[in-house]
């Protein structure tokens, strides 16, 4: 039995929880398939049983893919705290894929808006971005997220250098609040759902802030979030 499946959750962030490369590859493949399931479900419904998506399938698809983009964003941001708390360093190996799936669902979400809602009317889309704060914020987070996805390969990390690459990828700390704000401003009245995302995000970012504050007190060296 691999060490990470045993009961003890709290471990020092040492070299514990090592997985074989084969196990990691298998888990990655499983994660890849699992992450496609929400889209597969929508596609199957759209083509074979549109009734299941209700009378307004475009709205259903836009909302569902937006939800999944936010979920993948939260899961991606949860990797660092989980790794530190559990000591399962192998978790880091899945972070890139999770982040890319967030971007993937963002793209489907945006395509749904561009095609179903705006029927590719570029003029209307530009007007919308300028005029409606929730679209402005959503568009901004898309623009900021794109370079992160584009620099996700090992080659790009090498080209940029680890330090510059990491500074660039800290943009996610701006993107995530913007994405939640996009949801918050979109809902008409009932803010329960965006408030839940805001709370999760606050915990995930608060954790990093706490680590940073604690480590700056104990040692002078800069902490890595």
């Amino acid at each position, binding site marked *: 039995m691999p060490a990470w499946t045993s009961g003890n959750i709290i471990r020092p962030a040492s070299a514990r929880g090592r997985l074989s490369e084969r196990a990691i590859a298998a888990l990655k493949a499983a994660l890849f398939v699992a992450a496609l399931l929400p889209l597969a479900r929508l596609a*199957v*419904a759209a*083509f*074979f*049983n*549109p*009734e*299941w998506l*209700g*009378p*307004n*399938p*475009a*709205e259903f698809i836009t909302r569902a893919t937006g939800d999944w983009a936010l979920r993948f964003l939260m899961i991606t941001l949860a990797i660092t705290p989980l790794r530190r708390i559990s000591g399962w360093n192998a978790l880091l190996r899945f972070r890139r894929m999770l982040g890319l799936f967030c971007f993937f669902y963002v793209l489907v979400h945006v395509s749904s808006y561009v095609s*179903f*809602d705006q*029927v590719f009317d570029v003029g*209307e889309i530009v007007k*919308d971005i300028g*005029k*409606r*704060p*929730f679209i402005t914020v959503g568009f901004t987070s898309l623009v900021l997220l794109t370079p992160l996805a584009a620099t996700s390969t090992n080659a790009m990390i090498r080209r940029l250098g680890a330090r510059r690459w990491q500074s660039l990828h800290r943009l996610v700390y701006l993107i995530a609040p913007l994405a939640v704000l996009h949801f918050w*401003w*979109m*809902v*008409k*009245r*009932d803010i*329960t759902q965006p408030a839940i995302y805001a709370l999760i995000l606050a915990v995930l970012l608060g954790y990093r802030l706490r680590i940073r504050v604690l480590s700056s007190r104990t040692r002078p060296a800069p902490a890595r979030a």
Partner: protein
Amino acid sequence: MLIRRPGDIRPSEITARGVYLRRREFMKASGALALGAAVMVSRSAEAQNGQKLTGVAKSSYSTNEKPNSFKDISGYNNYYEFGTDKDDPVEYAKRLKVRPWTVAVEGEVRKPRSFSVEELLKFPLEERIYRLRCVEAWSMVIPWVGFEFNRIAKLVEPTGNAKFVEFVTAYQPENMPGVRLPVLDWPYVEGLRIDEALHPLTILAVGLYDEVLPNQNGAPVRLVVPWKYGFKSGKSIVKIRFVEKQPRTAWEKAAPQEYGFYSNVNPNVDHPRWSQKREKRLPAFFANRETVLFNGYGDQVARLYAGMDLRKYY
């Protein structure tokens, strides 16, 4: 009063042929692949043992556009007292207690009185097939069954002070999961100017597709004002007050810059968060038609707003 026949626009004149044809393909595919249907959790939007309404007369105010299916009309609803998702009302509105039910009519009237739902069902009922345009830019065609609101007014005799009518809707906290959150200032209140309320297009609906209203559509009695955005047509009405001052409505209180008192369907006045230029006639993937001023009922109602700046009084 001169009432003209509605200036109807055929769906075929508006829906792009390609879009229309594609929808058919989707429907065919869905029929052919029952397997897919079997795996999916089906949405239960069945009638709740709908009591049939008989002796319903046709009306020349009805549109000849094809009505939406009973399933769509009763499965895709905004009824925030039961939750803010479109499929919440069909699931939770079963709990709404609709009997016994009385509607109190009071205020600036000579003969205040109340009506039991049984009395309301005895009014001569008409089928009114109306377009319904939601402020969220989708629309349906709905075969309501009801009677003109002005029949109520005739019985209670409004005084000269009655300038507006306020409609107060049901508040049953024990049966309405949505009212636990302060989403709106409950109970939901709507209002009309008196001439709008007395207009022959304004009806109190008690049925849908020849059955009593399903709960999620506003049982047992609701307002329907077809030239205004859907939220103006309050559901499950318990009190009607004739008043002198313009009532403060629930959405106006919640977001005055987004939902004005008049809220007439108007392609030229955008909702601050989305355009009203086009609309999506459900079921459809795409916004498939242009929004029409007063939801296409301009011939009948435009005169009510002669000389008014509709941008200011949105």
